[in-house]
């Protein structure tokens, strides 16, 4: 009868089984150990996307670390934080943040004061996070005169500074967060790669290439260019991120430490790529304040690359980024310097 050829076909279900297993296995392999988390901390929106066996655990640790770092160390508002107590007591021991503070001091000096972490009182006058307003010239001048990183003395693991000056980690907190995440969580292993974003400051971790978009300044949506980068940190300072309008004039949150007013030099955003989170965060602010030419040389002095976007829709990137930047919006032009 027909039995013989049919019996031969007995092997086919198993062939199919194997094919299915392979197809499904490939699909599953791509999904396995993928986890993402979103949370609010440091007054901003944070995300972490991690691949690897311990992805979920790692993401939860990241969330905890950032919230704890903000509450216990960096927050100016939280009464139990280190920075709050330093500001209250005009100094104190700084063991946890000594290394970071030294980096901040160095950039302060090297940038000629373009980056300054002692402008807490000036920020209070503008109150960007609460009820923003243009402060009076007199008030601004008074407060500004008592600020300045040169008035901060660091010695033997302690810091001290005069009355009227208030430390503000707003321009470096996210970068510190990224460094802490990398050193304390990701370096422990158990993951393949991770992408952490603390309010737009990004940590890329893992042995692969990443694609990072630079936010479109005009619409606050989409990205004008993409960067192809290996593991590193990327931060951007943009005048579109926090601003308000008064009497038809637009005031943004990046303040010039010299004048106390928002920087007005034709730049829209500066993105800095660095191995160090805090450096990328600080330098993006410093470069924004310094402007294109001085900013670019400051970045290269620290071995970092940068992307400047100005209000003529011109994108200027470090030479080292040639071939790694791709424009994503027609109206923008790209050049290297």
């Amino acid at each position, binding site marked *: 009868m027909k039995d013989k050829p*049919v019996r031969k*076909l*007995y092997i*086919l*279900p198993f062939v*199919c089984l194997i*094919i*299915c297993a392979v*197809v499904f296995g490939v*699909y599953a392999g791509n999904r396995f150990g993928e986890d993402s*988390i*979103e*949370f*609010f901390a440091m*007054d*901003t*929106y944070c*995300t972490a*996307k991690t691949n690897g066996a311990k992805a979920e655990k790692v993401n939860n640790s990241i969330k905890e670390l950032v919230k704890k770092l903000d509450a216990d160390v960096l927050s100016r508002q939280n009464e139990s934080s280190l920075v709050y107590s330093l500001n209250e007591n005009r100094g104190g021991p700084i063991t946890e943040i000594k290394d970071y503070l030294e980096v901040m001091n160095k950039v302060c000096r090297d940038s000629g004061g373009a980056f300054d972490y002692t402008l807490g009182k000036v920020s209070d006058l503008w109150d960007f996070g*609460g*009820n*923003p307003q243009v402060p009076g010239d007199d008030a601004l001048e008074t407060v500004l005169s008592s600020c300045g990183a040169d008035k901060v003395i660091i010695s033997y693991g302690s810091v001290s500074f005069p009355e009227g000056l208030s430390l503000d980690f707003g321009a470096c907190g996210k970068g510190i967060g990224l460094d802490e995440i990398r050193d304390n969580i990701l370096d422990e292993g158990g993951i393949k790669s991770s*992408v952490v*974003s603390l*309010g*737009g*400051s*990004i940590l*890329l971790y893992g042995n692969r290439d*990443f*694609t*990072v*978009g*630079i*936010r479109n300044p005009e*619409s*606050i*949506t*989409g*990205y004008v260019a*993409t960067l192809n980068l290996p593991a590193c940190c*990327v*931060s*951007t300072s*943009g005048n*579109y*991120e*926090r601003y*308000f309008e008064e009497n038809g004039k637009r005031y943004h949150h990046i303040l010039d430490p010299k004048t106390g007013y928002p920087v007005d030099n034709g730049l829209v*955003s500066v*993105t800095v790529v660095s191995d160090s989170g805090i450096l990328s965060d600080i330098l993006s602010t410093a470069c924004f304040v310094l402007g294109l030419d001085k900013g670019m040389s400051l970045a290269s002095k620290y071995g970092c690359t940068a992307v400047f976007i100005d209000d003529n829709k011109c994108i200027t990137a470090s030479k080292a980024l040639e071939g790694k930047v791709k424009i994503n919006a027609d109206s923008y032009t790209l050049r290297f310097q």
Partner: protein
Amino acid sequence: MKLKLFRKADIIIIAAVIAVSGVFILLNSFDDSSLNAEITVNGKLYETVDLNAVNGKRVIIPDTDPHVVIVAEKGKIRFESAECKDKICVKAGNLTHKGDVAVCLPSGTVISITDSATDAVTY
């Protein structure tokens, strides 16, 4: 029992199913035309809106404090109004492209258009 374990038609059935679903899996993984907006409230997914499938105007009001009003139309989504002070989210305007994100911090609401072209967007 008249049933055999395996007959010729079975091969055709199995091959057809695998072929068709294989094509769809491939299409899905390369599908670039879909535009999905994810609305999350305090980190939890509130709703996913297929922006290509919205007919007319859809108003979404998640249960948040302060209240925000989200409006989805074909191919775009935005924060229409918010009861907070800074209104940064409303200023963000329409989200139309992959990777677009609008955040309302006071209410903890985030709209993002899901994107696979970039790993992250810096701002």
